[in-house]
């Protein structure tokens, strides 16, 4: 059944707290009223993080946010966000070259690999760079642009901080998020499919 959360006049985080409580109480269709953009953005972000479908209507100074909760039954075929999370491809770059043999050729191949990856649909969920792989994200490398394109497409790029330290180039990272073993491990464990080069 529908539920109305009137969060007008409330400062953050109260609108999000009310929305959370409504979701917890089992409501599936929730309408949240807020009167400022901060509350609108925060409620929308929270609801999306909980797997809700979110629609916003602006009525004068009031924002009417319609949420369809994640519900208990699987919503077959309708939930596009769900479909995207079903497939979590992780691309692992543990070397700054592709394949053994010629290092010169390996350089050319890794660049071609990243360019092609950016054209692939769907793009990977995340990319993990460790050991010499982190060097691909360092400024001046000709692979940075391809990685930036991937990042621009929403691909999260985790670059191993320990490795950057080791190679002395932590302040030269041009793309990606400097990350740690915990995040790298949880990413690799959460992958439905991983590709390592």
């Amino acid at each position, binding site marked *: 059944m529908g539920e109305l959360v009137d969060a007008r006049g409330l*400062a*953050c*985080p*109260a609108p*999000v*707290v009310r929305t*959370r409580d409504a979701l917890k109480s089992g409501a599936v269709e929730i309408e949240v009223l807020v009167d*400022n*953009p*901060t509350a609108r*953005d*925060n*409620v*929308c*972000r*929270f609801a999306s*993080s909980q797997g809700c479908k979110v629609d916003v209507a602006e009525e004068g100074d009031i924002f009417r946010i319609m949420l369809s909760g994640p519900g208990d039954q699987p919503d077959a075929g309708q939930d596009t966000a769900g479909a995207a999370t079903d497939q979590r491809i992780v691309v692992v770059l543990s070397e700054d070259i592709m394949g053994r043999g010629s290092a010169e050729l390996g350089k050319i191949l890794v660049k071609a690999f990243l360019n092609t990856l950016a054209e692939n649909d769907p793009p990977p969920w995340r990319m993990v760079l460790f050991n010499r792989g982190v060097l691909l994200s360092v400024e001046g490398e000709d692979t940075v642009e391809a990685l*930036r394109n991937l*990042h*621009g*497409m*929403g691909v999260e790029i985790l*670059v191993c901080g320990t490795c950057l330290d080791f190679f002395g180039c*932590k*302040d030269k*990272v*041009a*793309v*990606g*998020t*400097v990350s740690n073993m915990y995040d790298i491990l949880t990413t690799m464990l959460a992958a439905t499919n991983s590709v390592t080069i």
Partner: protein
Amino acid sequence: MGPEDLEKVLRLLPPGDMRREILVGLDTPDDAAVFMLDEETALVHTLDFFTPIVDDPYLFGQIAAANALSDIYAMGGTPLSAMNIACFPCSLGMEILARILEGGLAKVREAGAVLLGGHTVDDEEPKYGLAVTGRVHPERIMTSLGAEPGDILVLTKPLGTGILATALKGDFISEAEMAEAIEGMARLNSTASRAAVLAGAHACTDVTGFALVGHLLNMLPDQGLGCEIRMALLPVYEHVREMAALGMIPAGAHKNRDFLAARVEVPQGLDEVERDLLYDPQTSGGLLVALPPHGLEVFAQQLGEEGWTRIGRFFENASPLVRVVP
């Protein structure tokens, strides 16, 4: 108060007094005011107080005091004395007020200063802070202006306290889970300030309510200078990104973004969570220091490896601009 509102109010006031003793006054967006006594000595004055950011009264007292003392450190000064400012509802119980003041006193002492007195007002919501007086040599004052193209930008504490405080209010996180940030907020900027002075910093300010980007823009004069910051290098407290993804963004971050975004260039496709870190208002944040490249070694020697991060560099630019790169 947001930066836009403050600017409106200040515009209504008559211009500040002009006297040669006033070395830093109303006309610059600095952290504290500096009044020269003689050729060797100047006094640094500042005042800051706010509502509880954590529930534990002792920790709140420590954080509020560290935050107020920070303005002295940002100018390169040494705290001498402090006065308490407290607002408190009598109904809440005097033991709580006592714990707040105890926390504040501990930090004043740690700073090597003395507490001289204070004033308390009955008010619905508790507020606490300090008015602090410090000293500085008139020729060794650090101000927010003075950075030059090629200077390195360093930050001495992680970001994200506004997001964590919002999450704490909503019970999305516990005080125990935000221990790292509480410790960070209660930490004095004393050693960072000394390192900046010894390293010959060209400019310095502390990161508070106007967020990383707002305070960085205060370091840029009307023309000639821009600053590039590397998103990947920004130090962030534990759980901040997670809480930001849950919509724990304080209203102040929105005000900051509305007011500042025109002077900030962000990479295409920058994640919302990352963007919010730039505008998140900080409590008792770190120092932002503009170091000449040759000063970096001295700075690092003073602070060791921990407790500071090189996050960007200044470059020549026609108008003030913060360029964020991945």
